[in-house]
């Protein structure tokens, strides 16, 4: 009955395999090192954000270690995939804290995953920085261990609405947002800003991430007579919406936010994306030397143009490096203090400065428009 033997052998192998790798590989504390744990969706629906963050962080760590940017501290980084699922994210964070004994966590991208991780890092008393989650509830948990380098949604919503009111003189607008934490918080902020500016919100349909057909909603917006459509989601869906709107002969002004700001949006959207106005904290084509240097290095290393999440993750590593140099220790409390007092750093996405709740208000905000195959700067709104 060799088949039974194979199966029994297989089960044993399974058990040994699981036990073996659970023991983990905590490296001994030889030379002064700071261990950074990174949690993000490297598979599943938003894999391009997770992998973009992974590449940028790896690049930043290699650069800093090469040039001994943090004095005698060496950076060590561990990556865990959370598939964009909050339960798996909490397990990944736990593994990083217990097995790899990391001193700080970067992650996650989905606000729901970040919230789940914050419960773990707060209980363990370890600082956590998210460079991807923009959900407002994250910095309202009066949790002193959380910092956020993602650009603030509220500024973007207000800037976009103001731009529509002042330059386009529109009265009726519509929001078309993703049905996830990012999209829903954007929809709320846009609606509030529109009301404040006295614009009428004629329609506010939503879509599920991964949806492919948006024509029904676009038609509903067209029937509502909106003169501008504010999108809030990722570039794949945004490009599809732009194309399908053009196909339905709906050519009202399209607005977007930093979540979709990537050259891929232009590549996929084609000429339907021309003239799309969006806010972002990082402009791949900006004349700022720091940005150009980052983009060229990223392209050289990965043959791909960086997405905003990559730029923000890259800066996050530099913030940590600066903080550990100033604190000259990895004790959680001291590291947290050092991060909170970050000032005077000139990075790719602005001059980071954290308010007591943990939000980075040092971000500068660029209003850009798509012209040809790149973003053009329309206006810079400095962080208030």
């Amino acid at each position: 009955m060799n088949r039974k033997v194979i199966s029994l052998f297989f089960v044993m192998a399974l058990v040994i395999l699981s036990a073996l790798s659970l023991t983990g590989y905590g490296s001994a504390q030889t030379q002064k090192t700071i261990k950074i744990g990174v949690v993000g969706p490297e598979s599943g629906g938003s894999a391009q954000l997770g992998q973009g963050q992974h590449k940028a962080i790896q690049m930043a760590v290699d650069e800093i270690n090469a040039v001994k940017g943090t004095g005698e501290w060496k950076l060590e980084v561990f990556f865990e995939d959370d598939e964009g699922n909050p339960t798996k994210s909490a397990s990944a964070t736990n593994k990083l804290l217990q097995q790899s004994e990391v001193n700080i966590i970067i992650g996650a991208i989905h606000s729901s995953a970040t919230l789940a991780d914050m419960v773990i890092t707060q209980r363990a008393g370890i600082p956590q920085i998210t460079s991807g989650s923009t959900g407002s509830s994250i910095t309202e948990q009066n949790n002193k261990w959380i910092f956020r380098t993602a650009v603030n949604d509220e500024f973007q919503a207000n800037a976009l609405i103001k731009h529509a009111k002042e330059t386009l003189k529109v009265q009726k607008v519509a929001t078309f947002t993703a049905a996830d934490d990012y999209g829903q918080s954007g929809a709320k902020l846009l609606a509030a800003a529109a009301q404040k500016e006295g614009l009428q919100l004629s329609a506010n349909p939503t879509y599920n991430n991964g949806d492919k057909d948006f024509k029904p909603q676009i038609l509903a917006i067209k029937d509502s007579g909106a003169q501008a459509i504010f999108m809030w989601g990722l570039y794949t869906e945004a490009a599809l919406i732009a194309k399908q709107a053009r196909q339905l002969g709906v050519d009202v002004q399209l607005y977007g936010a930093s979540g979709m700001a990537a050259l891929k949006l232009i590549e996929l959207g084609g000429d339907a994306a021309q003239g799309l106005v969006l806010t972002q904290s990082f402009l791949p084509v900006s004349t700022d030397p720091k940005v150009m240097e980052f983009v060229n290095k990223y392209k050289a290393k990965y043959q791909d143009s960086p997405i905003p999440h990559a730029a923000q993750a890259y800066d996050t590593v530099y913030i940590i490096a600066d903080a550990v140099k100033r604190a000259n220790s990895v004790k959680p409390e001291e590291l947290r203090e050092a991060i909170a007092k970050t000032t005077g750093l000139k990075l790719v996405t602005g001059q980071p400065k954290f308010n007591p709740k943990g939000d980075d208000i040092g971000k500068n905000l660029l209003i850009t428009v798509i012209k040809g195959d790149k973003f053009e700067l329309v206006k810079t709104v400095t962080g208030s």
Partner: protein
Amino acid sequence: MQYFLNGLPLGAIYAIVALSYSLIYASSGVLNWSQGDMVMLGAYLGFTVVQLLHLGFTPALFISMAVVAAVGVAVQYFILRPLRERQSPPINVVIATLGVAIMARNIALAIWGPDAQNFPSPVSPAPIQIGVLSITRQDILIVVIGILLMLVLHLLLHRSREGKALRAVAQDRYAAVLMGIDTGRSDAVAFATSAALGAAAGILVAPIFFVTFNMGAGLGLKGFVAAVIGGLGNIPGAIAGGFFLGVLESVTGGQISSGYRDAITYALLILVLWLRPSGLFIRKNRQKV
């Protein structure tokens, strides 16, 4: 009316995927949950052929249909045949096809990366205006080629020897074996045809929906829903079910509420199944005592 028109191309795609579900279910009683991922593989292969080998749309269509058909046969031979020999319960077969779906998705992620890929459309994207209604050439292409594929399948099933063997097995597998039909071969043909159909759907949909590694998940589920509406195992039913779902989603999404679109679709379906327990387009099959 515009919503109806707009539901057609999506309906055609759902119909093709539903067709594959019903074809495999009818001929080998298997619920192939990896059908959606065959569509994804077809799209990616078409993309690779066009991007790397710089060939046109039609060669891409045929090459990717052939390769994905081979994948379908491999899945049938290495995974579903042993399951049949062991007479494993149907639930094991479902889990096996889900395993195939998980593997296909993550292999595609590893090979082609997480970013969405653009797929040049063989026809100009400019919309055609018919009075107030507008529809793009690509949509028309999808519906036309979709119906063409269904006709080809119909001919294959009713005219060719393989097709007749397939239908015989679908009617009564045991009797077919007695008549000397090699069910192994007919299963392979069923999987190859449905995989190829999936690939064609993938290439058709790629220009307007882009190609991502997890596009298979959504299509796989919607294809299953369409196949069940039409009455699982019933080929014309699957086509009708696909268009029905496409139009239903377009109308509910636009008119009622985009957030609850799928919820409404499912609620309606549960009601339909309560009234007609074996799908919209089949008489209630009587149980012999």
